[in-house]
């Protein structure tokens, strides 16, 4: 191993910090000249502020590098590595909505604004959305960043799926309380899986590992089921339609997945999610929508000759407990529920109405008249965007 040379190492770190500072300066320049819709301005302002804070942090590392205590060089190396990551995060992830902004972003930005304003813990987060798979980066130290495919973001039909992603943001904001509830469910499942007696052989060891996999997997699964419930509660029946339409691929894997794929998976099997969503939809009074999708799933399962089987990762007798915990999680986070008049059949959206009524009207219109829908949608989006923004 070559001998450690503190002065050369110090010089290397100084160089890195200077490079990062220059990169931040270039990023700020690009952010400032980008043409963005009005709805994205608060996000740009926050991004610039974060970039300036990061630059002050770099200045602090530079100051420490001027000292003469060599023992702290390893710590400063780690700080410089952290700073490198932050600059990457800013330039490669967080800056994307501003650098690739388009006027077509306005529609979904309006909905994100409204969604954030619906809860006091999220009201201060600026709205941002970029191109990509449907997901959210729930950065609480900065702001949540949603991504959806570009074409999807030009229409109303898949907007309800955003509320699932908002569920992840709510989870992070209420994490200690929600983790306790998830823990309660996981321990309950663990007890359910406990055999009456345990042998001391290879089979018993494998059973024990499977039990651990099932219990651990339910941490992520519970969060996904909670987010589905948030979506349905906030967006109403439109969520059920959007969810089914967006996620169903008419594939066998929608209905069943091999045991190896289930262990450690981040999402439950789609059929299980649908089953629990439909059950919740009936509880909320959305029977017609639930029946429609239940029928479709039974038809698909019969056509593919797939019987419902989750290989021990879910049993029907767990449903009551799972649903009770999800309800407790909803009580804890208190998302704004869809109001009855917003989900009313044949309700028309008028200026001043919430976007929830708009997305439910859109689905109703689409289901009745898919061919005539695009013309209706263009007019509806125009009317929605012509409303004054509350910025």
């Amino acid at each position: 191993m070559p001998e450690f040379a503190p002065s050369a190492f110090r010089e290397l770190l100084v160089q890195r910090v200077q490079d990062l500072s220059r990169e931040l300066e270039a990023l700020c320049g690009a952010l400032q000249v980008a043409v963005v819709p009005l709805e994205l301005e608060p996000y740009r302002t926050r991004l610039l502020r974060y970039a300036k804070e990061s630059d002050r942090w770099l200045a602090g590392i530079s100051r420490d590098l001027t000292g003469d205590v060599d023992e702290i060089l390893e710590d400063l190396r780690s700080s410089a590595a952290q700073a490198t990551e932050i600059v990457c995060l800013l330039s490669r992830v967080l800056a994307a909505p501003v650098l690739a902004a388009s006027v077509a972003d306005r529609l979904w930005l309006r909905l994100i604004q409204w969604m954030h304003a619906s809860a006091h813990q999220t009201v201060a987060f600026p709205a941002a959305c970029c191109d990509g798979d449907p997901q959210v980066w729930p950065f609480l130290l900065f702001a949540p960043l949603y991504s959806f495919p570009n074409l999807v973001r030009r229409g109303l039909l898949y907007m309800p799926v955003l509320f699932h992603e908002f569920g992840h943001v709510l989870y992070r904001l209420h994490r200690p309380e929600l983790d306790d509830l998830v823990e309660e469910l996981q321990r309950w499942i663990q007890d359910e899986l406990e055999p009456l007696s345990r042998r001391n052989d290879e089979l018993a060891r494998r059973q024990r590992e499977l039990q651990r996999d099932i219990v651990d997997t339910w941490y992520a699964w519970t969060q996904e089921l909670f987010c589905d419930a948030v979506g349905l509660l906030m967006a109403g029946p439109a969520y059920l339609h959007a969810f089914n339409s967006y996620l169903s691929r008419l594939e066998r894997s929608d209905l069943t997945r091999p045991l190896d794929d289930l262990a450690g998976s981040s999402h439950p099997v789609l059929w299980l999610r649908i089953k629990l969503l439909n059950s919740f939809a009936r509880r909320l009074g959305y029977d017609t929508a639930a029946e429609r999708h239940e029928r479709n799933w039974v038809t698909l399962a019969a056509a593919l000759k797939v019987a419902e089987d989750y290989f021990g990762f879910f049993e029907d007798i767990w449903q009551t407990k799972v649903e009770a915990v999800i309800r407790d999680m909803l009580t804890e986070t208190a998302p704004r529920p869809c109001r009855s008049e917003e989900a009313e059949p044949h309700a028309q959206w008028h200026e001043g109405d919430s976007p929830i009524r708009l997305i439910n009207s859109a689905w109703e219109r689409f289901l009745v008249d898919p061919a005539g829908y695009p013309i209706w949608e263009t007019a509806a989006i125009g009317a929605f965007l012509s409303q004054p923004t509350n910025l």
Partner: protein
Amino acid sequence: MSNTWILSESFESTRRLISAINTLSIHTKLCLAGRLDAERADEVKAARELLRTFFAELAKVVPELERDPNSPLPGSAPRASLFARRFVQARRKNPTVSLLLRVPVSEFAALFDAEDEEQQRLLVEGLQTLREMLEQHHHADATAMFGEL
């Protein structure tokens, strides 16, 4: 609907921990070198608090995993569970590397306020070990987020 929530949560929390370790480590080393480091006082206080909370969480699961490495960890996020399992594995395999891997977690956490030089040196050594483990863990999150060339 991907698992970015798992990644971003792990990314942010691990980053905060590494920053806290750096702050406390720099402060302790400067004290050992006889330098005043008063301007970092608030930052050091916040770093100690964050590390105390982290160690309290770790102290809850380590005995369980030492008793049964295959034990599930209800209420723990997937990435946090994985780190706890790796930590326990390191304690089993390399207990001589540092005090952090030899003594109960709560005993090491008591060193955060150490004023005695010998104890401060043990703290610095343990923080270094913890940082190496966290940086390795963090690398997977960062790679998944930013990709590789």
